[in-house]
């Protein structure tokens, strides 16, 4: 992304486009990854309500996974899930597992 000069930006750091958090990928901050066990999940949506980053992906009323480009790995969903369906894995190990 090309950064703008001081002459091109709004004064005071104001942001006028709504919903722009999507453009800011906070996934790289993560030290731990939350992983949903779909066999245990009842799609109660509690994790969706609690996630501060809107990173619980939902389709047709069902939880389908976690948006790793934005999930900061805070672990709130792990704590809140009443079914203990979400586990927490160190990011480095999770990455190795993927490879």
């Amino acid at each position: 992304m090309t950064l703008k000069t001081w002459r091109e930006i709004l004064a005071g750091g104001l942001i006028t486009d709504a919903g722009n958090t999507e453009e800011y990928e906070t996934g790289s901050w993560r030290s731990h990854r939350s992983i949903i066990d779909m066999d245990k999940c009842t799609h109660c949506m509690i994790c969706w309500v609690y996630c501060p980053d809107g990173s619980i992906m939902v389709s047709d009323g069902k939880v389908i996974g976690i948006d790793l480009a934005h999930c900061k790995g805070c672990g709130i969903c792990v704590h809140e899930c009443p079914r203990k369906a979400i586990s927490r894995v160190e990011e480095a190990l999770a990455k190795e597992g993927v490879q």
Partner: protein
Amino acid sequence: MVSPKVRGKPVALDGDRAVAEAIRQMSPDVVAAYPITPQTEIVMRFSEFVANGEVDTEFIPVESEHAAMSACIGASAAGGRAQTATAGAGLAFMWEVLWVASGTRLPIVMHVVNRSLSAPLNIHCDHSDSMGARDAGWIQLYDETVQEAYDNAIQALRIAEHPDVMLPTLHAMDGFILGHGLERLELLPDDAVREFVGVYKPEHSLLDVDHPVTYGPMELTDYFFEHKRQQAAAMERALEIIPQIGEEYGMLTGRYYGLMEGYRLEDAEFATVALGSTAGTIKTVVDELRDQGVKAGLLKLRCFRPFPATTVAEALGDKKAIAVLDRSLSFGAQCGPLFLEVITALFTHGFSPKVLNYAYGLGGRDIVPAQIHQVYKDLIDIDREGLAGPSLRYLGLRE
């Protein structure tokens, strides 16, 4: 000079009450303030106006000055006009949020009644409080008289809200000397003030739900520096806008305002530079010296932030010797904050007259004509014999 459009009403008021009248006449949407000596009478009087239904401002009696400024920030971001008043430790307690107001570019107006900073505890005037806030991104005007306190209070709003500026603005009057000093002044009719300040139409507002806006987001290494550069640019533009508004105010009232006022300065050989009420005492001394054939003059600075470097350098460049009077100390510095600015302005414009710096009046210590006579005598001496001894001297101090 054209004759003023409106006739003011002559009254006798102290500075605090005159400013309370100005706030009532400007009728801001929100006033959030905490009483502190010697500013208390502003808040006290204004809250009476609110209680009596003489003004429909939302008055928020906050629990602290930090909260006062924070409430003003919220109100201003919501698109309202917000004002506060404070003094000394109250201003110091606002320090953190002063930067939020300026960095968010909110045109808040603040009435400061100068008071020294503890310790030892002292309620009287010096400029340690407003000088402590000099780098916080606020425009700073200084008042010489109660009339100027009233006039600057009203102009501060127009300066702050000017689309080319959009910076919070404070004006400072000397505690007790002006704040509690009864003087004759002219109050404008209410409708003249209402017309002068007009209706505030913010470009952005939190309450404009059709155009959502985020105030106060986080910015890290990518954009923070660019926003600070914008604040510096707004200060530069304010140097143009402040005299324009002073001219417009002059057309209305007959009292014209610029960035500075020269008193018998043009042909002067020996000049002093001062802020606030001390300028009035200096004028008397200048007249006495002129009667004795000494070419004395005064540069009274009205606008300290932004600092009008070119204007000051051009007004002082041809003087034989200049004394700058600072009503605050920057411990460990070579000089007071006003001297620093004046000398930098002279040097960068190619002038190098002989200069002296005086620290005076701390904690409300009186400054009297005899002391100012001594200053001009010192200037004549250093012109003849060159500078001997330190350039920073203490005026009115028991040695």
